[in-house]
């Protein structure tokens, strides 16, 4: 349980860095401005390492979606709170939706084959397969 919590903390920290590099990438104007390009390179590297460590115990699809979602929510939330972007109820709702979905994913059982869990029974008939939702 402790290992899982550490992984989720790592994942959240990586998501914060993802917001930093996404902002820097936007300001780098195709890697032509040196400072944003450097900030981008450093934060992107750290963010990827954190994501890599986190997906050793968090399922890949979940980790990636949370990483990207929290990153996007922070980017827009930060832009709104600093007055760069106008405040909008819709944006706040979307941010709440991302955080809510991420929290929901965390509450699900791991379901990963990389870490043996007591409830991980591949032949279980309780798994609802709904590929059409993709």
């Amino acid at each position, binding site marked *: 349980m402790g290992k899982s919590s550490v992984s989720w903390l790592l994942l959240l920290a990586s998501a914060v860095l993802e917001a930093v590099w996404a902002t820097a*990438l936007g300001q780098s*104007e195709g890697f032509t401005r040196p400072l944003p390009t450097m900030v981008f390179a450093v934060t992107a590297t750290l963010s990827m390492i954190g994501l890599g460590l986190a997906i050793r115990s968090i*399922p*890949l699809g979940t980790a990636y979606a949370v990483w990207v979602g929290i990153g*996007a929510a922070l980017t827009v939330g930060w832009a709104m709170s600093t007055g760069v972007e106008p405040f909008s109820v819709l944006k706040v709702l979307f941010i709440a939706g991302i955080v809510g979905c991420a929290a929901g994913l965390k509450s*699900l059982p791991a379901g990963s084959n990389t870490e043996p869990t007591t409830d991980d029974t591949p032949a279980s008939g309780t798994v609802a397969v709904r590929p059409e939702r993709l």
Partner: protein
Amino acid sequence: MSWLILILSGALEAVWAAALHRTFQASGRRRLAPALLFMVSVLASMAGLAIAMQSIPTGTAYAVWVGVGVVLTSAYAILTRAERPTTARLLLLTGIAACVVGLKVVA
């Protein structure tokens, strides 16, 4: 042309996420190949996004890039049995993708 680059960059997101996954699962020399694939695909993906952002509005570009990435990464994780496709998980993943797209389209 920008849109083609953008969608390819989104697809590369799934490639690097999968390669990153393998890199951290393997040990010793077996890490080398996925690590290299990760480096190449992540650089190409970011470069593609940066190029696309020069002619497609940043918010729209990011939304499309992320949307393609989330869908393909989840599809890979489910197809390789790394992740069980429960209804709750699929709904929550779709929710995150939809909210990110909505956020960027509104912005």
